[in-house]
Each structure stands twice: as C-alpha cells, then as structure tokens.
C-alpha cells in the first residue's frame, strides 16, 4: 500500500484516525529511530569476518543488513541498533567490537 502519511498525526482530531485503532501500514516502525537508545555501537572488522551470518540471525532489532547472502560494508542499521552487543558476543571470530557512542571511532579497516 501507499505509505500512510503520519507526519502531522500530532494535530489530528478524532475524525482523522483510522477505524478501530488499526494501523493501516505494515512494518512502519522502520521509520522509528531507536538508535538513540544506544551507548555503544558495533563495529565489524571486515578482514576478520567470515560472513557466517550468526550476528544477523541473532540480532533482536533486525538491524543487520544482508545483501546477496553477505554483510555489506555498511552492515549495521544504526537507526534501529540499540547497541545490545549480542552480535559481538555471538561472533565466533571476534570480528565485531562494541565501541562507545560519542567517542572517536577506531579506524575501520
């Protein structure tokens, strides 16, 4: 369906809301940013990474991108990643490190 336009929802009156509190668009939480919850962000060392995808299957926030069965260079959706660190924890080759938000990022190879 066409995207449900909720830009001005804060100003809607009762007539403008869909019937019965239905949300007429599926999966639109993709537009909601939970990245601000994060105090640490994951950083992946592409050299070390074996593309096993364990991080992807274990992410609670659907925040890891996969393209053509591979993690792309920019592999984390930082709009959604809450920085839980599960990806780093499950990585069998320690290719992912969690680095504090707001600090200078280490050089990414």
């Amino acid at each position, binding site marked *: 369906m066409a995207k449900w336009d909720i830009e001005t929802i804060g100003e809607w009156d009762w007539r403008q809301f869909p019937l019965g509190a239905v*949300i007429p668009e599926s*999966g*639109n939480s993709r*537009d909601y940013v*939970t990245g601000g919850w994060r105090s640490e962000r994951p950083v992946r060392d592409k050299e070390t990474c074996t593309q096993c995808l364990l991080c992807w299957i274990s992410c*609670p926030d*659907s925040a890891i991108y996969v393209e053509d069965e591979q993690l792309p260079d920019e592999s984390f959706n930082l*709009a959604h990643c809450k920085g839980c660190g599960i990806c780093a924890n499950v990585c069998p080759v320690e290719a992912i490190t969690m680095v504090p938000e707001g600090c200078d990022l280490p050089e990414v190879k």
Partner: protein
Amino acid sequence: MATLKELTHREDRLAGGHRLCAGCGASIAVRQVLLGAGVEPVVVGCATGCLEVSTTIYPYSSWKTPFIHNAFENAAATVSGVESAFKALQRAGKIPADKKMKFVAFGGDGGTYDIGLQSLSGAMERGHDMVYVCYDNGAYMNTGIQRSSATPKGAWATTAQVGAAQQGKLQGRKDLTQIMAAHNIPYVAQASISHWKDLTTKAEKAFAVEGPAFLNVFAPCPRGWRLAYNKSVEISKIAVQTGFWPLYEVEDGVWRQTVKVHNRKPIEEFLKPQGRFKHLFKPENADLLAEIQSDVDRAWEQLQKRFETA
C-alpha cells in the same frame, strides 16, 4: 533445513524500530520462527505482553504481516477465530480455494503457561491449523518481573522475593511442553534462540503440519534476569548445555531429542551469570542449589526415557 545463507533470502517479517529492550530474546525468537515459516503469507496474533506492546505502539507497527492483538489470555482463541474465518471465507468462495495462509500466535510464558493456558488448550484440542509459539522468559516481564509458573525454582521475582524467610520462588517450573505434547497434536517442540538451525527447522515443521503445533522457545529477558544485554544468546546456549532447557520435538507422538548434550554442564553455570539467582550462591543456600541441580537431573533422566533411541 535451510542454511543461514538460504534464510537470508526469506523476508524478515519483523521490522526494526520496535521498542523492545536492547538484547531482548523475544524478538530474536520471533525473527527465527517467522524465517522458518517459509514464503506463504502468515497472519500473526499476539498476547498482551512486551512483544505486543513494544511492536505496535500507535501509529507504528513492526509487523510486516497481518497482525492482531486482542488481550492477554486469549491469543490462541483469537487466532483460532482468524483461522476459522479463513476456512469459512474460503468455503464461501470469498478467498480463492487454492490460497494458502499460515496462522501463528505468540505469547509470553505468563500469557501461555498461566492465564492463557485454557485458551491454548482449547485451541489445540479443536485442531485449528495454527502454530502457537511461547516465548518463555520465565516471568511476567512486561509488568515488571512477577513470578509465573514458568519461573525457575529459586529465582528472585518481584512477587517471589528474597529475604530472611524466603529465597525467591519456592516452586519448580510447570512443564508446559509436555502438557502440550499430552494434547496429542501433530507437532510439539522445545527450542532455543541460541540454536537457530534447530529452531528454524522446528518452525518449518510446525508450519508445515496440518493442524495445531506448539513451540516453546527459550527467550531470555536480560532486564528481568539481571543479565548483561549482550548475553541473551549465550545464556540460552548454556541453558541447553546444562540440561535446563532440553531441545526436543514430539512429532506425531514420537519423542526425539534434536540436540544431544553429552556432558551436561552443572546448573550453576546457567544460574551464576543471572542476578536473579545471586542469593543462591550464599553458603546458607547450598542445599537449595543442590536441590535445583537434582531437579534438573531428574527431569532430564525422565525425559531421556521418552526419546526414541533411533
């Protein structure tokens, strides 16, 4: 049984931007279950709880599937109604006869083991073509860590506290998976988010059977367990390795262990990382700790007897 690379071709049916805690086991469980559902459309029902609240905060929904939440204790009954509507509308010719659709209900342990057990039992007995998935985090986490009948013995909870007169929950867990197996439905399994291949395979089987299926999925709550956020998957693996959460399935009445554990680790390895069990490691609680180990051993041995040895 799909490989991880193969699974990446399937749609991830839970969108990000939901507001579950960092490190939540429930959303990992949902992603893995729905990846196992294959390509047919899935309709999702959800009991009131963390998962439901955090994925549908108006006006946002994280569900890329049709989704319905009704109340706390009735996810199974609600989805059974949805599935019945599908059958009737197909019979009436309003939905094409060849259209396939899958139905799944998710509930936490509170909404499944406790308040929703009757509704679940009824739906399973009636034979609806649906999968019920319990994401078991062992307490009422949505409302702030109250004990449920899935809370392990000795665990601290806000309604099973630790003090001079009581050391957390006094009672052991209800064995819901076996209760569901006793319904003689086509497929029942116990799975864990730490074993993605086992879980997605079980989900595939559950969705494939005609009739009701039940999955009990171990899904930690870092917040309620007083556990580091990054340990959800790790602790789930330990739960399996200690025998606290055996992985098995009951397919058409045949019990089969799906992940063998040859040298079970001591239960302490499961308990120690979790703040909710901290008090068990005081010297005066040594007996309780031993009792918990012996409970696990006994349950494990009893379960082994049910497995087909083939």
